[in-house]
């Protein structure tokens, strides 16, 4: 029987061997953290503390800047020392709050509500929003918003995304092995909140032990199933995962999973939600993979939000060669950053380090019209045509060919024999079209 999958996609080498067997190590709280106010999709959070204020771990330091937004919490105890522009994991400068720690790691009071399953849906949503949980797979969509679909769009399935199709990253994998019970509890909270009948846990075929653990766990759960998915990139993209797991196709041109009665959540988010609902624990730490051929001992670290990449790397004993490139996130969709003095965010799934040779980029040459990008595009777009129109600034046609639908998975760039940086061109198109739409 062939495994479930989607049309298109690529098969990059997965490089997970570096960090896949390293169990999660808890990092002691750093001396200083920088908490960006915009770690998610939506309005940036608004600071509610002043310079000089003393804060405890888990204390709210910035409140949500709107409905589609999340609040931020102190991840170490100490003093607020600066509120201003800092490096952001996505590369640019953005507003953030700096906390200098007192080294004591004093937490706010947490609860332990054993019968949390009896809580009302509104209370659950409130606790999730209070804990500042956003999607931890990468995009960072506020979780409480995802769990509040409009009444006319009922949800019947919650899919947990344990695919982790990006090469190198193993954070979700380790979490699935070590915290599987919490993940299942999180899934049940999701299902209750959106009153979904079915739960699906999607895991890629290269993680057989995780599949085994979950199959064992859901043996007695009639409405929760585990789906073994084909090893292919981008299997973990929302629309591709939905199609593979349910055969439902989310429409292009701005369609959302809820249009096909589905909500997708990352496995990391499930744990954060479980902790938020049961313990009222805010999202102040997460598991992050530090990997790469040149990293001395690649690790999966449970670190506080706002920890600098340089400290994460130090914990991994540094590098064996000179660093040529640092990528925040996965190698396919992550952002190259220009320094290690960058704080990790709630959405940071990995820090990857490459040497000069690995970072080498070939010069762009002309399009051969071979059509490989069209073959691999999981969204059935024609990337070469979009790029052609962006290059010659025909924004209207570029939009017609689906520039805005592109999720920038990078499959087309991976296969292009002319080394055309299609995603960069499409990015320019997206920026320009957004600009024109605002006018």
């Amino acid at each position: 029987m062939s495994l479930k999958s989607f049309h298109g996609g690529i098969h990059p080498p997965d490089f997970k061997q570096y960090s896949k067997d390293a169990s999660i190590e808890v990092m002691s709280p750093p001396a200083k953290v920088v908490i960006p106010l915009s770690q998610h999709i939506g309005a940036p959070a608004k600071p509610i503390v002043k310079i000089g204020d003393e804060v405890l771990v888990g204390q709210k330091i910035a409140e949500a800047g709107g409905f589609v937004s999340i609040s931020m919490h102190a991840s170490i105890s100490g003093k607020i020392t600066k509120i201003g522009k800092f490096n952001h994991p996505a590369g640019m400068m953005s507003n953030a709050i700096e906390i200098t720690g007192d080294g004591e790691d004093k937490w706010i009071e947490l609860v332990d509500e054993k019968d949390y399953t009896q809580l009302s849906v509104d209370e659950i949503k409130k606790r999730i929003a209070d804990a500042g949980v956003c999607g931890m797979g990468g995009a960072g969509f506020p979780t409480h918003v995802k769990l509040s679909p409009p009444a006319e769009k009922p949800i019947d399935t919650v899919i947990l995304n344990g695919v982790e199709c990006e090469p190198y990253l193993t954070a979700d994998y380790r979490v699935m092995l070590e915290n599987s019970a919490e993940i299942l509890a999180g899934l049940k909270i999701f299902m209750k909140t959106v009153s979904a009948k079915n739960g699906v846990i999607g895991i890629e075929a290269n993680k057989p032990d995780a599949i085994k653990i979950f199959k064992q766990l859901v043996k007695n759960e009639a409405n929760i199933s585990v789906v073994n998915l084909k090893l292919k990139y981008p299997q973990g993209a929302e629309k591709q995962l939905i199609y593979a797991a349910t055969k439902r196709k989310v429409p292009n041109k701005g369609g959302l999973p809820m249009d096909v009665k589905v909500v997708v959540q990352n496995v990391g988010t499930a744990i954060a939600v479980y902790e938020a609902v049961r313990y009222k624990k805010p999202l102040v730490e997460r598991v992050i993979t530090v990997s790469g051929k040149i990293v001395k001992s690649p690790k999966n670290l449970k670190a506080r939000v706002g920890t600098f990449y340089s400290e994460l790397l130090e914990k991994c004993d540094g590098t064996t060669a000179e660093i040529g490139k640092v990528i925040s996130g996965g190698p396919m969709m992550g952002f190259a950053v220009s320094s290690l003095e960058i704080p990790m965010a709630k959405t940071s799934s990995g820090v990857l380090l490459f040497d000069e040779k690995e970072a080498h980029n070939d010069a762009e040459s002309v399009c051969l019209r071979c059509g490989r990008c069209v073959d691999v595009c999981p969204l059935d777009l024609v990337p070469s045509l979009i790029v052609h129109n962006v290059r010659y600034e025909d924004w209207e046609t570029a939009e017609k060919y689906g520039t805005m639908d592109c999720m920038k998975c990078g499959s087309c760039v991976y296969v292009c024999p002319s080394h055309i940086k299609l995603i960069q061109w499409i990015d320019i198109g997206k920026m320009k079209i957004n600009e024109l739409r605002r006018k």
Partner: protein
Amino acid sequence: MLIYSIIILGSLGLLYGLGLAFASKKFHVHVDPKIEQINEALPSANCSACAFPGCSAYAEAIVVKGVDINLCAPGGDDAIQQIAGIMGLEATSANKKVAVIHCQSGGKDNTFYRYDYQGIQSCKAAIALSDGPNLCKYGCVYQYDCVRSCKFDAMSVDDNGMIHVDKEKCTGCGACVVACPRDLIELVSDKKRVHILCTSHDKGAESRKSCGNKTACIACTLCVKKCPKDAIYMDNNLAIIDYDKCVNCGICADVCPTSAIFDPLKEVRAQRKAAAAKKKAEAAKKLEAQKE
């Protein structure tokens, strides 16, 4: 048989010919011959500097809507005089404007970089990546969007990667102004000689550190104080010349400690000054010798 086909085709031809002749008389649209003449006087660059979609649209706008005749930047005074002749109007000279690039960071190799940019050749794309590869967040990123946008071959790149504007070839169409995502290029009257070649709003120490050529405006405000015409003002740590008031005296360029203000005559003036001082010294020496 041959004769039939000749007759049939001949009569068909005659019929259609008559129809076309009738239609051309009946549905004739009167076109002002002036439009055609003006169109020929214009340079046919279709650069849209006049804010019309092309030369013929501008020609039509002049005749039909009575739009100003001095909007064609590439055509210059020649075109204006010709159009004035056609329209029977008085020629009002257009103030010729040329592009000035407000950055002299010293070329591709001289600029300080935070990272090595390997992406596509596009300034917009370079800036989208972590605010651009330069240490200076305001300066030129040397991907040459402006050079590619120039239809008149007025912009050139030298061995050092610096962009130069040929004042003779530049028509002031403004295509480069639109192309530059960092808003470094401004159209200034070609009679203006003194320019501030920096757009950094950073504080003095920071902009001095980040400029590869060490010619950043450090917001010392010396130029503002020394300007005899009050033509320079400070805008958030950056000196800006109000070209309406500037009289090209170049005093600001002389006092600027970082040479952020450019005046082509600065050296000439300095030489003259030195020569004058030398003369004075010699005269004093002579005088002393005479006294003795």
